[in-house]
């Protein structure tokens, strides 16, 4: 989440010789990314989810105390704490908390004789800089403190709380509350809410207050409310309600449990100053959770190992101290505001090394032992196949894995939460999309071929789907035997020496397609090609034309021709006209020069065998 923090506001806390640009640079390099600087003053900072503590002027100022000196600038903490004093008064609040885990810490205080009016100009200006509209002096104080201290707060009109009674509990499904923005919200189960003495809901805790107890111009008594809530509950509630307020975004990242009372004191002081009111109750402070001191042993050696260079002990200690850690007996005590974020020595290493500066580390190439694994054959075969197809005129396509149902192939798996109907299924075949591409590119060329090499998704009982890589090709204006020839030549080029079955499908309108499991092809590829010794004798090539009836496939005829004599070196299909099949036969005798007398003898044997086996005759 991005947060707006004015440099001019930071100066309440830190005195420095750095300019706003220096501050932005130092923060980006050592802590948090400054996305931009608005009007030469306001830093827009991207705060990562683990750094909820940095969503405030106070939090950024703390960081600067560590990162400015690391970049060679001065930094002096000049903010004085508000003196703690004992509050007292006759006003009471009857608090009942059903489930203590909902509210680890609950604090509140009442102020009487408040005069609601507009805030001082400097408060309005500061709020305006961070994009918050001024409402009145009371509401503004709660917002101001949230930006400055990172602690969201709420102010109720004390007199509107029936019986001055609060029950903190989880909502039941269907309960209704109208929030300060006048929106009537129907709640799901499990949202943290507050019920007053009349049984109505008065607060959508951590997200937004109820309209029924709002501070208005007539308000005389204010109940200031400063809490810490279960972050997971706040996040879930705020997301399910679709209401992501600044307060919720902070609560769900966790607030500083030690910051609650100091924040309350700052707010009370401001309320007294701006409204003329006085505290009229004791301080209510309910701690439902104990946070034991968190200590991590500083493993200096480990920190060096993470960095790859020697970082001195002194630097480690001083950088951790500058970030608020207390170093004692070789251990680092985690500051309360980093309680949820820092857990292991690697976390300490990150803190130290980022202050040291990643730019100050060397760049090295890993050395060490040889990796055991070697490249899988499939990657090499895939790239080879792609090249083959490219150089034979095919265009490579990439399609989304998710498709509409009509383009997904047979029996596709469904996406539970698709973007839209266009992405609702996982493809089980690559063909439909390729046909769609040919259709969409109709005007491109009369003769065109496309291919895709990618995974499909096939349901498998009780396991992840099978995800084989398929090779699919689709053509327009290409003859059947031509596409078959591309596939055969490809398989040949990849070294698939055994028969690999594939099917060319006529899709109509001159479009053909072929889809093969490429994982199978890969596993068969790279077969050893046979070598026959070269001979100095010449071969003789002759054509032979046969009359076929279509009952015997070419393969069988070829086998017979080849088997007729050892001197038949090669049989090629040459031409087919009506029922006349012309073969080109190459004859070679490895022991002596073959003659036309020899070949005519072999031809006779071929014709004899074809005739007796299949009734195929020579065309005369």
């Amino acid at each position, binding site marked *: 989440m991005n947060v707006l923090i004015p440099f001019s506001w930071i100066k309440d806390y830190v005195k420095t010789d750095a300019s706003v640009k220096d501050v932005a640079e130092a923060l980006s390099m050592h802590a948090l990314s400054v996305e931009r600087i608005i009007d030469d003053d306001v830093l827009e900072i991207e705060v990562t989810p683990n750094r909820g503590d940095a969503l405030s002027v106070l939090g950024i100022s703390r960081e600067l105390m560590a990162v400015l000196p690391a970049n060679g600038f001065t930094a002096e903490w000049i903010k004085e704490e508000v003196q703690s004093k004992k509050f007292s008064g006759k006003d009471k609040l009857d608090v009942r908390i059903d489930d203590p885990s909902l509210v680890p810490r609950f604090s509140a205080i009442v102020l009487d004789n408040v005069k609601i009016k507009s805030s001082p100009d400097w408060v309005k200006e500061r709020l305006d800089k961070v994009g918050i509209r001024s409402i009145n002096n009371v509401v503004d104080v709660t917002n101001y403190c949230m930006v400055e201290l990172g602690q969201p707060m709420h102010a109720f009109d004390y007199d509107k709380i029936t019986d001055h009674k609060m029950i903190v509990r989880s909502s039941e499904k269907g309960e209704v509350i109208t929030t300060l923005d006048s929106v009537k919200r129907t709640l799901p189960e499990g949202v943290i809410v507050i019920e007053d003495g009349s049984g109505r809901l008065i607060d959508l805790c951590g997200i937004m207050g109820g309209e029924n107890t709002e501070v208005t111009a007539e308000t005389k008594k204010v109940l200031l409310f400063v809490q810490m809530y279960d972050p997971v509950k706040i996040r879930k509630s705020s997301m399910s309600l679709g209401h992501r307020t600044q307060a919720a975004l902070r609560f769900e990242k966790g607030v500083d449990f030690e910051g609650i009372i100091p924040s309350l004191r700052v707010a009370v002081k401001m309320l007294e100053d701006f409204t003329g009111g006085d505290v009229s109750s004791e301080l209510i402070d309910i701690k439902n959770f104990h946070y034991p001191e968190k200590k991590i042993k500083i493993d200096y050696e480990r920190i060096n190992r993470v960095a790859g260079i020697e970082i001195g002990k002194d630097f480690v200690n001083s950088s951790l101290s500058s970030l608020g850690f207390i170093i004692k007996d070789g251990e680092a005590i985690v500051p309360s505001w980093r309680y949820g974020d820092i857990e292991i020595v690697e976390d300490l290493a990150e803190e130290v090394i980022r202050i040291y500066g990643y730019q100050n580390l060397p760049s090295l190439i890993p050395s060490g032992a040889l990796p055991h694994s070697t490249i899988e054959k499939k990657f090499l075969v895939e790239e080879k196949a792609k090249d083959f197809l490219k150089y034979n005129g095919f265009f490579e396509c990439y399609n*989304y894995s998710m498709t509409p149902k009509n383009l997904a192939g047979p029996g596709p798996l469904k996406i*539970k939460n698709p*973007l839209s109907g266009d992405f609702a299924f996982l493809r089980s075949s690559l063909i439909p999309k390729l046909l769609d591409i040919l259709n969409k590119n109709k005007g491109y060329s009369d003769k065109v071929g496309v291919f895709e090499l990618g*995974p499909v998704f096939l349901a498998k009982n009780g396991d992840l789907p099978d995800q084989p890589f398929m090779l699919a090709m689709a053509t327009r204006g290409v003859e059947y035997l031509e596409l078959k020839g591309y596939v055969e030549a490809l398989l040949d080029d990849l070294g698939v020496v055994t028969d690999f079955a594939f099917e060319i499908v006529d899709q109509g309108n001159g479009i053909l397609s072929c889809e093969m499991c490429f994982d199978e092809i890969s596993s068969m590829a790279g077969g050893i090609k046979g070598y026959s010794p070269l001979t100095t004798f010449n071969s003789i090539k002759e054509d032979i034309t046969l009359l076929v009836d279509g009952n015997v496939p070419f393969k069988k005829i070829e086998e017979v021709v080849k088997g007729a004599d050892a001197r038949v070196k090669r049989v090629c299909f040459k031409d087919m006209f009506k029922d006349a099949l012309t073969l080109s036969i190459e004859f070679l005798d490895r022991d002596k020069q073959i003659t036309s007398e020899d070949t005519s003898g072999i031809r006779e044997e071929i014709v004899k065998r074809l005739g007796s086996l299949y009734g195929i005759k020579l065309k005369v």
Partner: protein
Amino acid sequence: MKLDIDKLRAEAEKELRDAGVHEKLSAWYSKFLGKKGIVRNFLASISDLSPEEKKEMGKKINLLKSDLEKLYSDAFSLVSSIKKDSQITEFYKTLPGKRPEVGHLHLITQAIREIDAVFARLGFVRVRYPEVDWDYFAFEALNMPKAHPARDEWETFFVDLPEDPKMGKVVVTPHTSSGQVREMLKAELPIRMLNISRCGRRQIDLNHVPTFYQFEGLVIDRGISISHLKGVLEYLIHNFFGKDTKFRLRPYDFRFTEPSFEVDVTCGLCGGKGCRFCKGGWVELGGAGMVHPNVLKAGGIDPEVYSGFAFGWGVERVLMMRSGIKIDDIRLLFENNMKFLEQF
């Protein structure tokens, strides 16, 4: 003067055969048929002869003359046509060659090859892990337990299949990091893995597509440090984007690395001066970090002995960021318009 017409004819014919080119042809013409040529001289020389002889010789000379004229004009047109043919031949050579029909490899394939080549030189071994995977590998094993807010960052697709009691839901993996623990579980150390796989996220706009490619580097060995991460990234960046490209690591937060970084490179459009496409001269390349001890443990590796780094970036993203190829809408990569594909 002896008038030997036959000899003259033979001589003229021979010289004409040898002439061949235009310049010599006209010299031949002047010599034999010109105003002061041999044939005219012959004609002039017979004026002294008797009328009988004159008549006969005149006839012969005129025949010779017309024959030579004919020979000349034939030779002239032959030479002219040869010259024209050779000009056509020269022109023919200026015509474009007849090319074989060559198709096109997709830009993503080209980018993957380049990336693979750079890492192969550093000894990284290419692998690929399933696009549809268990929640366990996509999140849980990566130090992101169920209901962790960090999961929201990944707009994950869920496949309509029953949940496995141990492995959880079936998801379209939102990142190549789900290959990290799978690679570790092969139990072959040290690891230098380059995982280039398809991923999916619930996003589609100018900069996002629901299916995309990431490449993930993972190195695990004894004594692997941030300095090694920096070295490998620098090698990649200099080889892929060019030697003048600078880069920087910024602190960031990912659950599966500690420390974590965002990696920025100088903007290819403005060269690092700062423009409206970048942030003060820098553009974000992607995330990186030192593998979190919990992730090593999930992969059965002892974090007290071994350490490692990882990074996972978008193939399309680094491709688009490289100066030279400026594609304003990433969806074009998956539209398969042939007028687009033919450009690469």
